[in-house]
Structures are given as C-alpha cells and as structure tokens.
C-alpha cells in the first residue's frame, strides 16, 4: 500500500476535458443574462431584508423556462438528458449572482439522490422490483426536472459526503426514526432551502436499518422552523417530524447510496458555485480598482493591490480546473470521483472565502456597508465553506483516499 490512488479520469495522455464546450457557454450566457435581468444585487438585497428571500418567479425562470432543473436527468425520466458538467455551469452562474434559488439543494443534491436510488434505475424497466418506490421516484424526478416541484435533502447542510467512519452506512443519520406504522419522528437541524421545498427527502433509520423517504413539506407532523442563517441568500431551517406520513423510496444500501450520491454530486457542484462566487468577487474588485481614485491615482495602480488581485486570479484559475475536474468526474461516474470531489471542496472553499474577504478589503469602507453586495458574497462564501464538509474534513478524506494516513 505505498502507491496513491491513480487519477483515472486523467489517466490518458490528453487528460479529461476541462474546458467549457460551446453548448456550456451558450447555457452560461442564457442563465447569466436572465439572472442579471431578474435578480440583480439590489433585488437580492431587498428580498433578503424580508422574511422571504426567494423569488419564485426567478426560480421558475431558471428551473422551468431555461430547463436548468432537469439538466442531468435522463430524457426518459423527464429531464434534459445533459449531465452534471452542464449543471455545474449553472451552479457557477448561480454563485456568481448569489441568487437565492434552490438549485444546488434541489436540482443537484436532491435530484442526484433520487437518480441514485435503485428504484430510479428500474423505473424504465418492466420488471421493477419495487413498483411503488420506483413510481414515486420517477414521478418525483419528473416533477423536479420540470420545475413543478422542489425537493431538498433533509440533512444538516454541513454534512460531509465522505464521513470519517468507514463501512457502508457509516455516518448514516439517525436523528429521524421510522415509527412502527411507517411514519417518521425526529429532528434535522440546519437544512438548507427547506423553507421553500415542496418535498423533503429524508434519510431515516428504520428497525431494519437505513431507509430513504419522501415527505410532503406541508404534511401533518412536519414543522419547519426558520433559522437565522449566516448566508442571507440560502436560508436554513430546523425540521421536526412528529409521526409524519412518508413514502419509502429506498432501503438499506439503496438508501445509503442515494444519500451518498446526493452529497457527493452536491459537493462537486458546490465547488463550481464557489468558483462563480470567487470570480464575481474578483470581477467586482477589479472593476472597483479601475474606477476608484485615491491620492490622485486609480487604486488599481498600487502594486500591493495589483499583486493581490493577480494572486487571486491565479488561485481562481486553479479553482476552475479543479471544479471542472470534479464536474467531469461526477458526470462520467469516474472511479476518481471521491478524490476529485474532496480535492474540489478542499481547494474551492478556501479560494471563494479568500476572494470574498479580499473583495471587502479592496473596496475599503464601502465594502463594509450593508448596501454594497460584497457582504452577500462573503456570507455565501463562508457558509459554503462549511457546507458539505469543511476544507479540513475534505483534506482528511483525501488522506484516506490517496494513502497518506494520519500519524499513529
């Protein structure tokens, strides 16, 4: 055991395709234009001062009109039949605009979890072993892909896709239990975007072991309590289930797999969102450095600021390569996916926070005000760095994956 995990997706000479395709650039342009038009910073900020930061019209435009909700869902299941690569570009743009929409939580994490549920694979097969579950999953995926409904995975947003423990089912949440009558009872804290979800996908512990359920967010026995979130544009809720009715979607390994895949794809695409956040912070900073004068000179002519901007640009260029690689790996279900995702989270979390912190500092006093959008990015970046595992947790995961074990 003295060799690292080989990088399979880059095993061939030319390497994985880390560039953006023309299709991806077109998709980016559509999303960017729509968000610039419908969700400018002042609108985001104004909404954040209310109890309802989410604009349903923007979400409909993104999810349904532009078809972003179902990008990675096969056409047979009602989606666009593209892949997580394309979805990653959308995540970048959502990050770039700090738009409060449940794209990452709904169209990525929840959707990936459903796609990984064994019933999903059997939904278009005649010999479905689990007709009811399959039907539920297929119907739900179709609804999500069309933007008719929004689902989120009911786990703390801080959950790491590669838990420190080992073995199948290690780290499977146990705060929600399946009652004898199949209803759910328990609590889940800090669930992102739950306040606007129609459906909650709940990993719960049954007597027989891990299981995976769909619960109506407005069903009897379900309470969602708003949390004051650090990130103004992605709100958290604490959810309490008190004998809530639930549809069982998967069991045992199927449930473990659905949860793991949801978090893994989520972590991979969160890296792209972080890339978008970082790029927006750099762009905003560079624009300010080119227009703000002090001492009779544009402040962008001061070398200390120039060099920090250059270092940031170089770091973001690296984050882009890393985020693309993670997206390619989850799109191809590459065996190097665990390494790619841990790498992407370990790297992009840090770059996004640094970019947002520098953005505030580059702007001086104005960057410290509520009216300037810099703080929206700072709060998003810092929260995102804690979401789906911290950089340190992902580094620890890398240590296990590439055979660089801890001391002792």
């Amino acid at each position, binding site marked *: 055991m003295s060799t690292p995990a080989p990088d399979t997706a880059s095993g061939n000479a030319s390497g994985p395709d880390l560039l953006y395709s023309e299709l991806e650039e077109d998709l980016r342009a559509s999303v960017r234009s729509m968000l610039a038009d419908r969700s400018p910073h002042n609108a985001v900020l104004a909404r954040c001062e209310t109890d309802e930061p989410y604009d349903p019209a923007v979400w409909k435009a993104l999810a349904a009109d532009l078809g972003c909700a179902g990008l990675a869902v096969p056409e047979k299941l009602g989606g666009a039949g593209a892949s997580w690569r394309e979805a990653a570009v959308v995540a970048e743009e959502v990050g770039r605009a700090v738009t409060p929409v449940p794209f990452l939580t709904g169209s990525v994490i929840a959707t990936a979890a459903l796609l990984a549920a064994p019933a999903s694979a059997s939904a278009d097969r005649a010999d479905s072993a689990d007709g009811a579950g399959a039907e539920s999953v297929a119907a739900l995926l179709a609804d999500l892909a069309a933007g008719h409904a929004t689902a989120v995975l009911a786990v703390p947003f801080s959950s790491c896709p590669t838990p420190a423990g080992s073995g199948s089912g290690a780290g499977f949440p146990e705060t929600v239990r399946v009652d004898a009558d199949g209803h759910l009872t328990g609590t889940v804290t800090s669930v992102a975007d739950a306040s606007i979800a129609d459906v909650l996908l709940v990993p719960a512990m049954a007597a027989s072991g891990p299981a995976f359920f769909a619960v109506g967010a407005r069903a009897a026995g379900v309470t969602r309590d708003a949390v004051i979130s650090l990130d103004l544009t992605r709100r958290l809720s604490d959810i309490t289930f008190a004998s809530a009715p639930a549809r069982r979607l998967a069991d045992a390994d199927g449930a473990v797999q659905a949860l793991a895949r949801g978090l893994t794809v989520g972590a991979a695409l969160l890296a792209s969102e972080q890339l978008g956040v970082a790029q927006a912070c750099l762009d905003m900073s560079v624009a300010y450095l080119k227009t703000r004068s002090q001492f009779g000179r544009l402040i962008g002519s001061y070398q*200390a600021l120039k060099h920090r901007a250059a270092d940031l640009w170089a770091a973001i260029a690296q984050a882009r390569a890393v985020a693309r690689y993670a997206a390619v790996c989850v799109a191809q279900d590459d065996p190097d996916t665990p390494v790619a995702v841990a790498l992407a989270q370990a790297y992009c979390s840090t770059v996004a926070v640094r970019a947002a912190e520098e953005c505030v500092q580059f702007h001086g*006093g104005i960057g*410290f005000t509520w009216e300037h959008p*810099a703080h929206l990015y*700072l709060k998003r970046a810092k*929260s995102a760095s*804690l979401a789906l595992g911290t950089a340190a947790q992902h580094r620890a995961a890398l240590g296990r994956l590439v055979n660089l074990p801890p001391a002792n």
Partner: protein
Amino acid sequence: MLNERIKALLDGHPPASTPRLEFLRARFDSGLAWVHFPAGLGGLDAPREQQRIVDEALAAAGAPDNDPHRIGIGLGMAAPTILAHGTDEQRRRFLRPLWTGEEVWCQLFSEPGAGSDLAGLATKAVRENPGDEASDWIVTGQKVWTSMAHEARWAILIARTDPNVPKHKGLTYFVCDMTGPGVEVRPLRQITGEAEFNEVFLTAARIPDAHRLGPVGAGWAVAQTTLMNERVAIGGGAQPREGGVIGVVARAWRERPELRTAAAHDTLLDLWTQAEAARLTATRLRQQLAAGGPGPEGSAAKLAFARLNQEISGFELDLLGEQGLRYDDWSTGSWASERPTTVDFAGRGAGYRYLRAKGNSIEGGTSEILRNIIAERVLGLPPEIRVDKDVPWKDLAQ
C-alpha cells in the same frame, strides 16, 4: 501629594453619597481626571504613569468612572488635539464636559471620496463674510464612518477652506456643533446588520470662528495629532493572556471536546502563539511609549490586531461547522438594524465576530495605509510616487 489629593477628593465627595456627575466634576477640578494634563484642565502636569495610581485608588473607593468606552473619541482623539492646538478658551470650554461625559464627541473626517486619501476631502468651509477674519464659517459636504454622531454634542471636523492650493495645504480643523441647523445624521448600516456608524450631511452648517482649532490652512498638521492617537488607541490596549477573540475560541476548545480535530489543533495553537506574541508586543510597546509619545510602531500593533482578529474569527466558524452556518444567538433574533454605542470585537456570536472583524483592517487606517506608514516612516523606504502633491486641489481628478 497625589495620595493626599485623592484622599481630599474622596473626603470632600464621598462616592456613596455624591451624585455621579458632581463627583466627576469635582475629580476633574482637583486635577485627578488625567494627571498628565495641565493644572486647571483636569490634570497636574504629572507623569502619565501616575494615572494608574489614581484610577486604582478611586475604583477601590467605589467612585464612579466616566464610562470611557462611551466617550472614547472625545478622550482619545478630541482631547489631545484640543490640548495641543486649542486656545486657552477652547481648552477651558471643551475639556471638562468632554471628560465628565456630559458632552459626547464624534469625528467628521472621512468622506465617501476621501478614505485613505483623507487630505483629498471635499467638504468645504467658507467665510460667511469673505475678508472678515472673525466671520463665521459655512460648511457644506458629506462625512461618513462617524461613530456616535447620533449621540454627540460636538464633532472634530476637517474641511477644505482653500481649493486653490495643494490638497494638504487648504484644510482647516474645526469644532462643529452637532446639534446645530444644517447637520443631519443618518445611520450607516454595515455588514453585521447593525449601524454602528453614521453618515453626516452638512448643509450650510454654521461654525463660529472661535471654534476653529489651529490656524486657517493648518488642518492637516492638527489632524496628525488626532490620527496618531487614534492608532495607538486601537492597537495598544492592555490585555491579559487569552484576552480578546482567542480566549473565546480557546474556551470553546476546552469546554467542547467534540469540536476538536487533529487538523484544527495545530492551527489553534498557531493562532494562540500569534495572539500571545501580539500581546507581548503590545506590552513592550506600552513600555516604550511610557518614555516617549506615540510613534509609527502603533501602526504595527493595529496591523497585527486586524489580521489576527480576522484569522481567529474565521477559524472559529470552521471549528463550529454546522453551528457556524447559523448566524447568532443575538437577543433580537434577526439581522435587525441596531444602533450599538460601543463595540466588542469578542462579543456576541461567532458569525458576528467574523463579520465585524472585517472592519478591523479598514477602520482607523486601512492595513494598506499602515504598511505604507511602516515602510516609509520606520524603514525609510522611498515614498509612493505622488501625482497629487503640488497640484491645486481643484485641479485633481476627484
């Protein structure tokens, strides 16, 4: 002699039975307010170090203090400037109620277009009757980042009185009545959701010439006294070991073993090391200052303080994980726009500490400006190339 004065004050005005303000006034009048100030102005021309003796004796006797946090700008910035540059009349008028806290002070320096480049400011003051050397001044402009403006009776103000000379030469320093007509204070909300600071709009606000501090055109030199004292005040406070934000994190580590990870351990100890190094450096700086006045070394202390506060508060959120995603345990339970009159960088929740620390490298001189000061004044490195030194202010790109 000092002890006798203290005894006399306490005997004449027993703290238990003397109204607070009456005691504070008597303390000022007996020269025990700030002993290094001149006699008659709250002091005794005594060495600064003796203040500690007074403070401790009076505290031990249960005497009220002047709530120094609330009147920090007056004590730390206005008072030394008035003492150094004011007329006798100004010193007599302003210092006593400033020290007792009867009159709160604020600072009208920064402007939206003049932050680091303070000397580039655009607020203008013109004589009501040009040519009359005793004429009132009429002031118009916008100031920003003004703490306590909404509670202040007086402001120290710099304004441009001559746009036809290079920018440093056309400034004059005033005392501005914050309660007069033409002075409008608006809260300035910051990234924590609160409004610690204000914007102040001056619209033909009137200042009598008697409230001018120093000669016309000497505003920049007068302001140096204020700014030097500000930086020392920000960087130099005495702290016990694990004072400040590092103490909060260290306590969390001790009390919540479930937060500990191997990776975080070394980072925590690195931050602890840096915090303790900064504390010992501040101790050494105070020992140096006991001999001389404030110097550019104070800039290094503020620089280190800002960086450390930011690093530690960022680390704290990483350590807290899920809890870090949740903003605050704040009593109002929202991102409400409060108006705190004091700020505690180590107070409230971890999210607040993280956000508030971002201001530490901006307020009171950005870290970039402080590095310039160290490089040029301490190390003697060549100054930035200046394109604005010899040009009349009105001809500069604004």
